[in-house]
């Protein structure tokens, strides 16, 4: 019985830090969408019109997979 209690305590000691580690890892990765969103928004805004912008702007062929329509580039300019 004493042995069983000892093992249970030992298990608790090992599991608790592991759980804490996992939680902190989860917390760390949370909110990465907000960080990446602001990073990309800044980067996109900083591109000056010209040749650089041609690379930044997409055509419908890239956005819609398997589309083989050569004339579909107008999709991104639909508005």
């Amino acid at each position: 019985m004493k042995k069983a209690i000892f093992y249970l305590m030992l298990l608790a000691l090992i599991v608790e830090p592991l759980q804490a580690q996992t939680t902190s890892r989860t917390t760390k990765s949370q909110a990465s969408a907000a960080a990446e969103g602001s990073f990309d928004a800044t980067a996109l805004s900083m591109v000056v019109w010209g040749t650089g912008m041609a690379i930044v702007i997409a055509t419908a062929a890239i956005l819609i997979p398997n589309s083989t329509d050569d004339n579909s580039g107008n999709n991104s300019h639909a508005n």
Partner: protein
Amino acid sequence: MLTRVFLIFCCLCSYGFSDAYYFFKPPKGWKVANPDLLSESVEIGFIGKSTFKFKPSINLATEEVSLSLENYMKEVKKIYQNDRTTSYRDLGKLPTKAGPSRLLEITKKTKFGQVKMLQAILVKNNKAYVLTGAMESKGFIDMYSIFIKTFQSFTFTDNLLSVIQNVEKKEKLKKTISSFQALENKKDKQKQFNILQKMITKDFNELGTHWQIAILKDIQTAK
């Protein structure tokens, strides 16, 4: 009996959630950013024109989360607090078509000048949706209402066709989609898809480019 009812209820709920689509309406004339250049969590980005040196941009980032909106906001604020080049202001709640979001104003110093951003954050069904609009400080005031209007257009729907108001147009599109789905020959399918693409880009401008891309992707990936 109760267990069965509960299981059926759970299945129906998960089906409904998994089928949810979301989109926002970017300002007219804004161009889609090349997705290859975007970060992992950023799904789509748009770039606008302006008389300033740098251009306004809006993007949508998403991620799976196990936090409530309040706790997610705490994590977001921690990120900005730890960045010496960045300061932020919590502007409170912002209602969107998809539900209430929280709005942040972020100021970032860069090598090329100061950038101001608005960020609307929404958490729903264990997923965070982050809309970010950026503009250099000088032109930010002009862009403020445009960013807010765009954020407020953020919508969830179980069916992308349901947001079409014009019944005639909706029925015409439904028929074209059905005939596309009925085809088996690859060449015929591509031809019909091109017709669909032209129809959606021409006849549904009022729903915005994000909706247009979402429905075309959905039509193509649907079995």
